[in-house]
């Protein structure tokens, strides 16, 4: 005798599940809830061991203190009415978010080598939640970078815009930027599957992503071919939005809406790709 569907009690433990995934609204609720659970793991880990966050503060500090100070002094880069250090500040925030996010999927390879991913995939968690939860985790780490960069830049005398709406905008853009690059990182991790290759590709990607953007100089200074590349680079739109939001005298080339839209579109496409690739990491 074979049981059909969910009829008949199979043993003492099987009860009708209170949850029904058939309805789109409850499916969406489940997706959001599970995404938050995956991100909660990261928050709990950071609470147990926040040392990594402090280490991450060193790099933006060095860029601002050394690179920023020198280039502000020589005035080699035309930055309009902005001091070079002011111009640089949003770029360095975007950069530190990029660095946090681009290596974030390293944990995926680690978890795959253990059996952690297997267990998540065998649980009733939507694949999109597993992927978005990781993206949100990178976003949470990046929010700490916001605090660090704001602290250092204000000490260096950058005139920061502390208007709450602008701050909220900064947080949103940082979350979106972190999502884009951590999803990109996740995609790479799903494809290469080994630590060594992942590190290699990560290193390879950060350079062009960072330099083919408006993070440390205006796009207008670039040769034409590089300008095209930097217009395809999501980091450019992240920096552009941050430049308008962070600084008192900051201006963006594009509207906040366009910058956010580009980042949302990039994150959506990457989420769909990753949700496809992610279950394959255990094969």
């Amino acid at each position, binding site marked *: 005798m074979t049981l059909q569907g969910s009829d008949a009690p199979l043993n003492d433990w099987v009860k009708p599940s209170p949850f029904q995934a058939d309805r789109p609204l409850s499916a969406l609720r*489940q997706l959001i*809830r599970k995404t938050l659970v995956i991100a909660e*793991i990261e928050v709990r880990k950071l609470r147990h061991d926040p040392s990594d966050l402090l280490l991450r503060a060193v790099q933006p500090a060095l860029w601002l203190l050394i690179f920023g100070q020198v280039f502000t002094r020589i005035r080699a880069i035309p930055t309009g009415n902005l001091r070079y250090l002011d111009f640089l500040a949003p770029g360095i925030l975007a950069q530190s978010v990029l660095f946090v996010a681009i290596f974030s999927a390293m944990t995926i390879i680690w978890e795959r080598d253990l*059996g952690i991913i297997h*267990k998540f995939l*065998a649980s009733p968690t939507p694949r999109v939640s597993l992927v978005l939860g990781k993206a949100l985790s990178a976003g949470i780490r990046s929010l700490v970078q916001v605090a660090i960069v704001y602290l250092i830049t204000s000490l260096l005398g950058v005139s920061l815009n502390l208007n709450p709406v602008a701050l909220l905008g900064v947080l949103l853009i940082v979350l979106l930027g972190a999502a884009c690059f951590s999803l990109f990182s996740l995609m790479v991790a799903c494809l290469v599957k080994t630590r060594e290759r992942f590190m290699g590709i990560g290193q390879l990607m950060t350079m062009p992503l960072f330099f083919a953007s408006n993070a440390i100089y205006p796009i207008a200074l670039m040769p034409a071919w590089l300008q095209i590349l930097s217009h395809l680079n999501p980091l450019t739109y992240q920096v552009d939005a941050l430049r308008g939001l962070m600084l008192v005298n900051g201006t963006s080339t594009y509207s906040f809406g366009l910058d956010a839209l580009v980042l949302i579109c990039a994150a959506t496409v990457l989420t769909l790709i990753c949700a496809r690739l992610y279950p394959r990491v*255990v094969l």
Partner: protein
Amino acid sequence: MNETKSDVSLITARDDRPIILETQGLTRKFHQFTAVDRLDLTVSSGEIFGLLGPNGAGKSTVIKMLTTLLPPTAGRAKIAGFDIRGQAAQVRRQIGYVPQSLSADGTLTGYENLLIFAKLYDIPHRVQRVRIREALEFMGLQEAADRLVRTYSGGMIRRLEIAQAILHQPAVLFLDEPTVGLDPLARSVVWELVQQLRTNYGTTVFLTTHFMEEADSLCHRVAIMHQGSVIVMDTPDRLKASLAQANPTLDDVFIHYTGNPLESGGTYRDTSRLRRTTQRLG
């Protein structure tokens, strides 16, 4: 343990027990290589079923297909009435899974490891705490609940992993090599817990192992796999009785059916993973 044995004959004799797991022609190929070849088996509700075989025989591939991690190339399988391909989401709610390699998160506490899975399995908020406390008690981990898992011993980690997999009270619990890398004492603790799970809650257990002693003392029925196919399936006692020699062990049965065990063995990656797990748990 003798008590369980008498129980065994009862179960295999009773055909009216509902079938909770069923595969028909389940096949998985990796390019030219057939890892699992037309597997047909049925497991009754409340049974402890063991899939045995040398490394690389296809045991883990079977478990990965049944736990919806790996789509089969051909054939079908149903768990608690749900199809593993068409109804994967429902299947996932009915099963618990403890992978072979280490799957508890060392950077979280034992309690947190359970809490995350309680949430992922949609255990209602008001019963989460109770369920977690019960699971911790059942596994004897109450004292260690608030310690980071990386400070646990191998046996404690395994117990925590089983606790994670039974929080939602699954119909079928999959254990992939549950005692690999454990010392004999920790191993027997795991065996007792598995038996208790079945006695207390009627959980069906589907496990893979290459320890014959484990299969002999735990399983009601075993299937021996070799090169992707099941070559024999019966109760351990009947399998032993089928051999011509006097007082055979299940080891003898295994060697009789699979030939020289030295000739088989998993790939480089399997071996490295197994060794790493052993190292961590040991």
